[in-house]
């Protein structure tokens, strides 16, 4: 089995049938990933710029990347609706956190309890199945009936979106704990509370962390949808910026806000992946 690593490498080599030579392709492959990616991104930006300038595309339809960049920079101090960039970003983050926190507070304990106490699983699972196929954003109208059109309704939509992956992953995480671990703990004299907190929970933690990551990602998606659909009551949030751009025919604002959402979404994803790795530090 120690030959395994060499074997795996051999297999990977085998995908490229031709032997390695000093071709241009090999030279590019040897470049650091960051260099390759940056060059290609510049290339795509140039394509975007070229298409806009060459075909004289209207600014209301598709501004060139420099216009978008200028718009993003101006957003830093120039208010749209309730305020400038930080106001909107902060409003979005706060909403996301309310919905996400509620999903954790209900999803994690419920998932644990369902995995540990089977009748509860049988009681909850049918209800869960009943609601599973409703897209989170379809809750927006009821959320607005219940909470009024504003932040609370948006947070509720985020909650419905984050809740399912958190519950399912917690539940599966505990269920998938190797039963031999539990048997081993039992033969060592552990009681059921000890087993829950010292064996099942730590072993399930990586799954829980995965659930949180997926929940945050789907929550982020729901947040933007909620700000666009259920945002009539509030005048802030990144989704509001996108919508404003469309309604005022400012494509640079719409695209600029989309870029900001993409960047913020990536930052959130990277940070929670780092945290996830912490949770699972004892895995390879």
């Amino acid at each position, binding site marked *: *089995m*120690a*030959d395994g*690593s*060499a*074997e795996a*490498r*051999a297999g990977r*080599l*085998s995908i490229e*049938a031709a*032997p390695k030579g000093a071709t241009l392709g090999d030279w590019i492959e040897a470049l650091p990933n960051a260099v390759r990616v940056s060059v290609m991104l510049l290339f795509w930006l140039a394509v975007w710029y070229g298409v806009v300038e060459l075909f004289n595309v209207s600014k209301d339809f598709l501004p060139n990347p420099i216009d978008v960049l200028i718009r993003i920079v101006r957003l830093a101090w120039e208010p749209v609706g309730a305020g400038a960039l930080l106001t909107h970003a902060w409003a979005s983050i706060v909403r996301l956190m309310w919905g996400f926190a509620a999903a954790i507070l209900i999803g994690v304990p419920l998932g644990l309890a369902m995995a540990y106490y089977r009748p509860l699983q049988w009681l909850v699972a049918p209800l869960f199945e009943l609601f599973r196929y409703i897209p989170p954003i379809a809750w927006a109208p009821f959320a607005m009936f219940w909470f009024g059109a504003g932040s609370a309704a948006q947070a509720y939509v985020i909650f419905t979106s984050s809740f399912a992956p958190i519950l399912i992953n917690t539940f599966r995480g505990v269920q998938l704990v190797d039963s031999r671990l539990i048997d081993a703990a039992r033969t060592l004299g552990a009681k059921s509370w000890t087993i829950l907190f010292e064996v099942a929970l730590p072993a399930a933690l990586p799954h829980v962390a995965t659930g949180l990551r997926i929940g945050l990602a789907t929550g982020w998606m729901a947040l933007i949808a909620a700000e666009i659909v259920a945002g009539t009551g509030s005048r802030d949030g990144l989704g509001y910026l996108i919508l404003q751009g469309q309604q005022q025919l400012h494509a640079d604002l719409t695209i600029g806000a989309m870029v900001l959402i993409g960047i913020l979404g990536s930052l959130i994803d990277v940070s929670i992946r780092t945290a996830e790795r912490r949770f699972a530090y004892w895995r390879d």
Partner: protein
Amino acid sequence: MQNDLSYENVTMRFEGRSGAVQALERFDFQVNSSEFLVIVGPSGCGKSTLLHLTAGLYKPPTGRILLGGAEIKEPGPDKAIVFQNFSLFPWKTVHDNIDFGLRINGIPATEREEQIKRVIHLIGLEGFENHYPRQLSGGMQQRVAIARSFVLKPRTLLMDEPFAALDAQNRQIMQEELVRIWQTQRPTVLFITHSVEEAVFLADRVIVMTRRPGRVKEVIDIAQIAGENHWRSDPFDEVIRRADFQDTRSRIWGLVKSEISVRN
């Protein structure tokens, strides 16, 4: 006996995360035509690397490997390889797995069916033609993998620990089966194993390799010890009781053991 496979000064290194790993160093060897050659050695000694190089899956940076006088440059059915984990195509039935090599090498359909029928009979899996690999036991899957290579009538058959994933009983049965199948065509076989017993039972010659970087430590001529009628034609559990078998096994195990460092 003429030379079939020859290794000239073969060196191989891998660029690993923790620096370069020297897998093989100046490996020189000649394999005879129709010889059953078994290679043993400590884990990580480059046995598998040697087999993959022989299969033409990649090229050694220095040195040459010649098959029938021509340098090996790319993989092909004249040097088919059988892996430990069977590597059957899970989406193809037994019949279609065996058919794959014949079809892509442009054999006409009628001849293919004949050949498939022949090897399925040879491995004793009549009636399983339309089963998928997951419906077969490990031993049956490995029979199919052997048949898939064997049907192409390879000049050389390369086997990378083919029975390591089987339980002890099945392993014994498969060793005897392999001898029977092999004797119908007698290709040159290069066989890698961790089991010294298996090596002594099957081989014409056994190569013991040193630990990394792998070189030939010693070559043991089993055919000479096993006599005119090689003991591999007899039942395994009878052979294993023979004194000369036992002596040979101890001797080879001693050689392998001296290469296994405690820290591995």
